[in-house]
């Protein structure tokens, strides 16, 4: 960044933008007077939870809001022109050409029935006024730049023939090939795996730097922001509550919301006996925004004044502004959230009992086809997994999507029959699913949902069951009144609590949780994690916690199994695996996780994992990871490494593990 850009008028200048959604149940004021500016070549991150209005704000800039969304007031100036006053036709010459867009879900953002070439070449012809041949060459060039192998052939592919990461690369190539001055990226990596996310972020970072394109990056992931952004805007309830340079936001956050958000992320140095900080309550209903400060109800530092007047953004440092009456936000308040965990040492049973034992488990899926020749293709989803979970212990299973971790969960619960191998479970195993709203019958009351397993096993009589329901619902931190509600009347966090209550109903000895927090917002996630850890301590249940979120797994798990293509490649105590990973894949996974600390991020030499997961249809002969491994040698490609004990407490499957 040069000094000239500081003086020049900003590229994008948003002033007092307001956006509403008129629904049958009232007007949702999604964006409530947002003002900020982006300079040439600058990367600004917009951070907020779902419902904070960040996406609505971004879509308002190009008037891409779906009905009934409507920009009600405000100005959006792009290089001095007010986009709000342009006609639809005039705006169409800005869209794509001057402002490119990359959306969240790469699986649905490309037209499924059109070849990539048909979607990519016409915009280039139009924006750069090139002939078809030249535009085609340009498209191939950009596909190559975003890291798509064999771009010439890939240009003629259909979207469904590509993986999610590849499609997002295509989206980025599509947006950048028209040479926009500004790129709006709306949660571009949320749907992707952590290793792919790291690749995509790197691609966007280098390419926008190369072309001098400014960028507005919308995300809920604070770690990504630290890795990526120059400036950060934190949004809450339709307003920007804090805006400033990335270092200031992370090192000296001024708004209580920013401060709370940062403290909810399990840090790498998290002390296990400390509870995660959590933000109590939920964001306000934007149909009737509260008077005064919207964060008031969840804020420990709130004073009488906060209830009357909403604070305006006021300077806190050079270019750093925040909207809070308290000059230092939460600082000085007693942080109830950081208390130590209550000790349950007295009544805890001894931990020597093995609750789950999995021996050489395999699961192969094959789909015999009527008309095709040759043997049916076999997907080796789980390929010889051996694991143990002790009583009161949490086993974390991590790996990219497609590594077989969810199949292990389904096998554990008997939802699938293993192809070979054994599973022993001492007692009963229950499951908590990823998406609480999709795993409940929407027409059943919460009480009936929790009661269902009791009825299935004909547990007790009606009175006993209803007493059990009341006990369960309070155990997961809800109230008895919630039993009478329907799933749609609860928030995501509350629904996940209900899912936990249902899993607990039959007093299981093992709970398998498959990505239980990944559908939840950051502030709610900490609540659920605390709940799970409390229950584990209180009831002595064994947990199998499956997640791609490595920071959460590190915080919650005692032991970790890292899976790659259906195999466990590393297995050991959580802290050791994270601090001194033995397997190169574990190393790469940990390096791909963005940390919520811009100083550390800047120092980290990120060695990105190249390529994607090979197809489980034809596994390589040697080490499955050899194709992506930075230290692979000939032996890795020919001979399969077995799990062995390079260290006393740990197992790893790698030929070179001693040399690391």
């Amino acid at each position, binding site marked *: 960044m040069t000094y000239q850009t500081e003086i020049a008028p900003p590229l994008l200048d948003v002033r007092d933008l307001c956006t509403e959604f008129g629904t049958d149940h009232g007007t949702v004021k999604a964006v409530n007077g947002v003002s900020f500016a982006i300079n040439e070549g600058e990367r600004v991150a917009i951070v907020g939870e779902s419902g904070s209005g960040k996406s609505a704000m971004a879509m308002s800039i*190009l008037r*891409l809001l*779906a*009905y*009934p969304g409507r920009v009600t007031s405000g100005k959006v100036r792009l290089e001095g022109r007010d986009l709000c006053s342009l006609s*639809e*036709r005039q*705006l*169409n*010459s*800005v*869209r*794509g*050409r001057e402002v*490119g*867009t990359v*959306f969240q*879900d790469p699986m*649905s*953002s*490309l*037209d*499924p*029935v*059109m070849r990539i070439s048909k979607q990519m070449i016409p*915009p280039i012809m*139009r924006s750069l006024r090139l002939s078809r041949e030249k535009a085609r060459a340009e498209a191939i060039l950009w596909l190559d730049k975003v890291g798509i192998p064999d771009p010439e052939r890939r240009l003629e592919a*259909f979207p*469904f023939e590509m993986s999610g990461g590849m499609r997002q690369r295509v*989206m980025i190539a*599509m947006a950048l090939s*028209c040479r926009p001055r500004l790129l709006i990226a709306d949660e571009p990596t949320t749907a992707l795996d952590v290793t792919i996310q790291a690749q995509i972020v790197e691609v966007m970072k280098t390419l926008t730097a190369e072309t001098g394109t400014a960028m507005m990056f919308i995300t809920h992931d604070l770690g990504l922001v630290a890795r990526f952004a120059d400036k950060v805007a934190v949004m809450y309830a339709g307003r920007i509550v804090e805006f400033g340079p990335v270092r200031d936001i992370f090192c000296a956050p001024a708004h209580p919301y920013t401060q709370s958000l940062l403290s909810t992320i399990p840090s790498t140095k998290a002390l296990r006996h400390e509870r995660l900080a959590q933000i109590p309550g939920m964001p306000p209903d934007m149909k009737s925004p509260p008077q005064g400060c919207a964060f008031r109800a969840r804020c420990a530092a709130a004073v009488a004044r906060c209830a009357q007047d909403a604070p305006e953004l006021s300077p806190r440092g050079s270019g750093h502004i925040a909207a809070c009456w308290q000059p230092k936000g939460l600082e000085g308040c007693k942080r109830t959230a950081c208390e130590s965990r209550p000790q349950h040492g007295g009544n805890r049973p001894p931990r020597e009992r093995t609750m789950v034992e999995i021996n050489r488990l395999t699961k192969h899926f094959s789909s015999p086809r009527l*008309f095709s020749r040759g043997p049916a293709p076999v997907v080796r989803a789980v390929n010889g997994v051996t694991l143990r979970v002790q009583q009161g212990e949490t086993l974390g299973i991590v790996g990219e999507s497609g590594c077989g971790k969810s199949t292990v969960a389904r096998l554990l619960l008997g939802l699938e029959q293993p192809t070979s191998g054994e599973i022993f479970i001492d007692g009963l195993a229950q499951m908590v699913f990823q998406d609480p709203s999709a795993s409940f019958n929407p027409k059943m009351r919460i009480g009936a949902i929790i009661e269902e397993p009791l009825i299935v096993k004909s547990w007790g009589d009606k009175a006993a069951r209803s007493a059990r329901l009341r006990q369960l619902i309070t155990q997961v931190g809800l109230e008895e009144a919630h039993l009478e509600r329907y799933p749609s009347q609860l928030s995501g966090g509350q629904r996940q609590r209900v899912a936990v209550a249902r899993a607990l109903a039959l007093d299981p000895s093992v709970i398998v949780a498959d990505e239980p927090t990944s559908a939840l917002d950051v502030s709610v996630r900490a609540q659920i994690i605390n709940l799970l850890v409390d229950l584990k301590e209180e009831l002595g249940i064994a947990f199998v916690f499956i997640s791609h979120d490595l920071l959460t797994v590190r915080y919650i798990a005692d032991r970790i199994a890292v899976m790659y293509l259906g195999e466990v490649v590393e297995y050991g105590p959580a802290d050791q695996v994270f601090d001194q990973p033995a397997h190169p894949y574990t190393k790469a996974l940990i390096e791909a996780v963005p940390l919520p600390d811009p100083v550390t991020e800047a120092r980290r030499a990120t060695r990105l994992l190249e390529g994607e997961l090979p197809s489980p249809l034809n596994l390589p002969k040697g080490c499955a990871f050899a194709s992506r491994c930075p230290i692979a040698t000939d032996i890795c490609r020919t001979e399969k490494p077995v799990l062995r004990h390079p260290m006393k407490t740990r197992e790893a499957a790698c030929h070179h593990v001693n040399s690391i």
Partner: protein
Amino acid sequence: MVDYSLKKFAQLIFTVFGVVTLVFFTLRFIPGDAASAMAGDTISGEALELLREQMGLNAPLWSQYLAYLHGLVTFDFGVTITTQLPVADLILRAMPVTLSIAVLTIVLTVTLAIPLGTLAALMAHRGQNGLDNAITGTAMVLDLMPSFWTALVFLLIFSLTLGWFPASGTISFDSPVDYLKRIALPVLVLSVTQLATMARITRTAVLEVLSEDYVRTARAMGWSEMRVLFRHALKNAALPIVTVIGLSFGNLLNGTVIVEFIFTIPGIGNLLINGINSRDYQMVQTLIVFYALLFIVINFATDIIYRALDPRVKF
């Protein structure tokens, strides 16, 4: 694509065989036969038995079945039991009339329903519900009217009161204008019901696609609303629409039976009604096989079009 077509075609052979067999046996299991229908109340006893013998109705069922299969394979559909005229000739003479009505109806319906449905979807997507409600409301009312009733109303208005179209009379291809005038009312009557279904399906399909992410992507690339609508929305909405066009062809074959009867048009529908009334096995079973083949061909075409429209369709 060729692979796909061949596989679909191979599956057809089984279907055709099933249909052919089913038709034969269902007809034989209906009480009463051609001989008694022909004889009416006048002859009975031995005379009737003789008639049965002459018509080949006393042969064992399996030999009748084999003869029937043999006939189908060699394209010899026999003569009608009642009038002794070659069945194939009768069908070939009636077919152009019926097919021209069906094809004209489809063309008229598609050209009206798809733009109307798309327009309604676009309005609904933008929250301008007035026009959308008008279109969907009208479609609903039209959909509820049975075609025999619409036929009578149209006859009353356009033929008897206004005198625009003839209500009955000879039909020939010699004068195309007269021919079109003669089949205009049947086509209109059939279009009305088809139109409603197709417009509603188009509306639903397009409306759903309009809120898809890739449509937003196309808008974000700066394409005009028209291009977004035609290149992206309609192309993706085409699958359900093609299905409905295929289905409505089937419905039309039913519809023509009623309409041909009301407007006294010598098409396949009338042949079928006469055949059933006189228990003319030969005629009826050939016609049903013919109808079934038509259905199968249409379904086959729909499958192939599916694959051409959406490369994700697996086989």
